[in-house]
């Protein structure tokens, strides 16, 4: 038999080493797979930073690398938010930049000539490998089965829900934050299990790192206290819990307060109050337990319990009072909109306008997690088997994370790890049951059988009190090889489908850097549409070093990163009024916009126009948000209503309202566009409508550059007229007063609500 041959490798000390090496190599392979599956975009296009926010992080990293840490720390950036500027050093999460900066310097110390861009591009895949490893550790804390951890690591490595934010080039905070999240949780579980201050301190350390890396740290800040609170409510208070939580809270809070952007929030804002409250609660409970251990009397105990409840209630009331009185800042809009889901849509259009803040429909879950999504509840149920502290953590995490992910698409990211863990628990328990080589003998003496099966049958009475209904009977095992084979083979095929699914999703959905667009030529070869960089490079090379560029805020970071020119607004939407100003300039008549642009010293205006190529993500489609945001500040001057026809349609052809036709954005988008087409065939390929042959005329700005496929159009703001005329008359004078013709209407285009 094969066993005898292989025996020495699987038994005793050698066996342990063999398994260790096997496990190590498997983990390494998983990490490799995780990294490799994220390189689609690098292979298809090039090593390039992806869409919007990463460009800012990249720019900040370059600043850090070139100017050193302390300059970075108090970096005042006067090239964004002109003329306000931005205290960048104090308003960002430095963790990401510092990490890649450290890696850069380390490699340089080894005199390896690596470009900082490549580090930034490959940071996310690299950390995804670490995340897989952290998941492995975390899961091993959850179950005794050796396979669970490896499965969880594998799932985590290739789950699209995580890949979506960590492909090569998406150099965003999430790139390292998810690793930190999982690893912090692992350390927390470790600390709770051992009740050791060291692990608690480590947990706090990585919590601090997490705080420096991502705003999502609030999730940890609320999840760990919730875990503790639940445990206390379950009457599971123990010195272990006390030690680990107090260490974590004290050190972690101090660590988090070192980040300028966070500062005193941990004691001043409501997001952090739960942690503080639980901290106080633990003190009370600890005190009570201590006294109770000293004083055995029953009534005294109840008295103490009442006292605890009283103090807790009072302090809670105090917190509420402080919040109302404003000493403690109420919830920030973004966070508050998680609870009151209608809030953002009414009050914070900027938040509502971002696509990743929309709620999640079920296909998104299946798309991102495939079969894990239905293994997930099973895994959570398994956690109820032996409901130790760590399993409680899994349950709490699952419920909380699934709620959040349901409210906001981007929070799918925080759900993914626990889904992978739970699913791995389920699958591993299946495999462990059905992959046992030795089957139980047929009943008759099943009493001894149960014993020999490793798990002694729990006495029925014990099982009745606690434990799950499904576990009342003693464990027997699987008799026939057929059933083993069928289940295992089915499971394997599902897992294979899962792998295929992940690859497919990653390559089709999550691997395009929105800076470079790819299209297929008739002969099937790939054609790269590189208009963004064409225009940005033109700006960078052929305009004045400090020429102010006005564009919608989506492109602020890219202009800062690629064109290296000052912008009015960018994706760090800290100043709603300023954004609304740009929105107003874009959406009002030239006579209104020109003074605004002069006041902000705007030299060039950049608009994105997809009409020629059929590129749907252009400014005309985002236009309504500009209008809404502007209307929020100037309700009398900008009215969303005026951009809809009487029939409530949002149109750009002849049927468009006068306000629409006269708005600067409309004019700039369609300026000179129809000269491309033979008369009467001028068409907008995004909106799919025919446009009037006579395009709009511009008086206060002039076309400076238009990219090859017209995606980016740059206009130069004219200087004041030398002869002192107003620009309109000057321009019409030069034009020699052409007359416009009117053309009959075409079919309307009905407004689609967001």
């Amino acid at each position: 038999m094969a066993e005898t041959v292989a025996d020495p490798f699987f038994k005793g000390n050698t066996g342990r080493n063999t398994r260790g090496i096997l496990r190590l190599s498997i983990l390494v392979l998983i990490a490799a797979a995780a990294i490799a599956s994220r390189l689609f975009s690098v292979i298809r296009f090039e090593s390039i930073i992806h869409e919007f926010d990463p460009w800012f992080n990249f720019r900040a990293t370059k600043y850090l690398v070139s100017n050193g840490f302390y300059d970075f720390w108090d970096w005042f950036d006067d090239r964004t938010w002109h003329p306000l500027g931005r205290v960048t050093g104090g308003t960002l999460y430095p963790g990401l930049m510092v990490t890649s900066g450290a890696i850069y310097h380390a490699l340089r110390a080894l005199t390896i000539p690596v470009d900082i861009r490549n580090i930034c591009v490959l940071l996310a895949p690299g950390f995804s490998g670490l995340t897989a490893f952290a998941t492995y550790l975390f899961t091993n804390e959850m179950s005794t089965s050796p396979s669970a951890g490896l499965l969880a690591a594998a799932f985590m490595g290739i789950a699209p829900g995580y890949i979506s934010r960590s492909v090569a080039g998406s150099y965003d905070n999430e790139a390292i934050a998810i690793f930190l999240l999982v690893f912090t949780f692992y350390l927390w579980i470790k600390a709770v299990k051992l009740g050791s201050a060291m692990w608690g301190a480590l947990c706090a350390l990585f919590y601090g790192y997490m705080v420096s890396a991502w705003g999502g740290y609030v999730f940890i800040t609320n999840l760990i206290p919730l875990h503790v609170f639940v445990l206390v409510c379950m009457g599971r208070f123990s010195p272990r819990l006390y030690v680990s939580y107090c260490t974590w809270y004290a050190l972690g809070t101090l660590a988090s307060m070192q980040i300028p952007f966070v500062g005193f929030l941990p004691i001043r804002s409501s997001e952090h109050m739960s942690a503080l409250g639980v901290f106080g609660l633990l003190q009370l409970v600890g005190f009570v337990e201590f006294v109770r251990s000293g004083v055995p009397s029953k009534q005294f105990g109840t008295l103490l319990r009442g006292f605890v409840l009283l103090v807790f209630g009072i302090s809670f009331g105090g917190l509420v009072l402080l919040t109302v009185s404003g000493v403690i800042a109420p919830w920030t809009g973004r966070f508050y909109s998680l609870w009151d889901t209608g809030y953002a849509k009414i009050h914070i259009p900027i938040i509502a306008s971002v696509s990743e803040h929309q709620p999640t429909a079920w296909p998104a879950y299946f798309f991102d997690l495939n079969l894990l999504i239905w293994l997930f509840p099973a895994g959570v149920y398994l956690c109820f088997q032996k409901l130790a502290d760590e399993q409680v953590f899994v349950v709490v995490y699952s419920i909380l994370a699934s709620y959040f992910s349901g409210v906001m698409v981007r929070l799918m990211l925080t759900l993914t790890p626990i889904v992978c863990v739970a699913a791995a628990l389920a699958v591993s328990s299946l495999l462990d049951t059905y992959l046992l080589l030795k089957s139980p003998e047929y009943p008759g003496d099943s009493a001894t059988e149960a014993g020999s099966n490793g798990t002694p049958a729990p006495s029925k009475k014990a099982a009745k009190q606690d434990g799950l209904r499904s576990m009342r009977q003693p464990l027997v095992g699987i008799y026939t090889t057929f059933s083993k084979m069928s289940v295992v083979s089915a499971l394997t095929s599902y897992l294979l489908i899962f792998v295929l699914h992940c690859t497919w999703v990653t390559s089709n959905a999550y691997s395009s850097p929105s800076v470079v667009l790819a299209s297929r030529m008739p002969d099937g070869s790939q054609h790269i549409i590189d208009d963004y960089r064409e225009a940005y490079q033109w700006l960078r090379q052929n305009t004045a070093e400090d020429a102010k560029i006005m564009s919608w805020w989506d492109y602020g970071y890219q202009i800062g990163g690629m064109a290296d020119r000052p912008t009015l607004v960018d994706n760090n939407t800290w100043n709603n009024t300023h954004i609304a100003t740009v929105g107003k300039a874009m959406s009002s008549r030239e006579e209104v916009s020109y003074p605004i642009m002069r006041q902000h010293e705007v030299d060039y205006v950049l608009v994105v126009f997809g009409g020629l190529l059929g590129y749907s993500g252009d400014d005309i489609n985002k236009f309504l948000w500009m209008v809404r945001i502007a209307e929020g500040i100037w309700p009398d001057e900008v009215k969303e209503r005026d951009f809809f026809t009487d029939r409530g349609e949002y149109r750009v052809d002849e049927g468009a309202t006068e306000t629409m036709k006269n708005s600067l954005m409309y004019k700039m988008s369609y300026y000179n566009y129809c000269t491309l087409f033979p008369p009467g065939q001028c068409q907008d390929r995004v909106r799919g409508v025919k446009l009037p042959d006579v395009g709009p005329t511009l008086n206060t700005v002039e076309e400076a550059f238009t990219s090859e496929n017209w995606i980016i159009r740059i206009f130069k703001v004219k200087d004041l007229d030398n002869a002192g005329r107003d620009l309109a008359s000057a321009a019409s004078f030069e034009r020699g007063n052409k007359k416009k013709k009117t053309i009959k209407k075409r079919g309307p285009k009905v407004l689609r609500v967001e």
Partner: protein
Amino acid sequence: MHFLKGLLLSLLPAAALAAKKPVVDKFSQFHTKALASTPLKLDDSVYAKLTAAPRNYSVVVLLTAMEARFGCALCREFQPEWDLLSSSWTKGDKKGDSRLVFGTLDFVDGKNTFQSLGLQTAPVLLFFQPTVGPHAIPDNGPIRYDFTSGPQSAEQVHSWIARYLPDRPHPQVNRPINWVRGIAITTTILATITFLSVAWPYMVPIIQNRNVWAAISLIAILLFTTGHMFNHIRKVPYVTGDGRGGVSYFAGGFSNQNGLETQILAAIYGLLSFATISLALKVPRITDPKTQQVAVIVWSGVIFVMYSFLLSVFRMKNGGYPFWLPPFF
């Protein structure tokens, strides 16, 4: 009346003096009416009278269509807010310093007005500035307030009105405290407390029962992971009819879903995970080989079919999805 007013106006020098008299009366009489019941219920004639120039007072008129047959949900949602606003404003200045009159014109009473204004939509809020007097505004065309962004609260409209009434009192909107609700809440709280204190010993086993908690958490997870929050926020329909009068259970489009759809999905997920659980926990505890064999086959079959069905549903939602399992293609 109109003729008379025109005459008065035509007497240029005396116009101001002469015109004032009836106008003042007009406002005071409307104001007294308003004190009795506000907003004033208007019809065509009253509307014309109220909004006719010259006026040295401001008018806010809500043109609405309350009747069910018009199916104007927005009107009905906004009406209480509107009443609250006008009543609190009118109470706010009994002397009528702000010289503002609130009026409501329902479509049934004011068809002509609606036609003359060429309104297709309701509700519409019209604001008439005074044409004579201290706060006179030259052009007396009404300012229009559109309900583009859904139902408005009284405060929002209040601030809007206040913008057009500078240096005049703006009585705040004060919502009446809902005593009934408060009492109800307190009683329920007390009741629950007493109930708990009485029923505690019986409750404890239930509270401490793992199965209950497991069930609760599983249900919660299933709800959330099938997009219940999406339904809640977007207020999606429960089912949508397909063109041919039937019912389509699954809404088209990747980021779109029906209420029923999510419940079906929840059922599928639940069944799948229950099958998994039984395979993992129940089956190995079956002592009789035959039954165990059957159970294994049944449960694996359930998983297989359900998963294949799930994939097919997803292919329905997402066109280009390449993977599938038999029997559902």
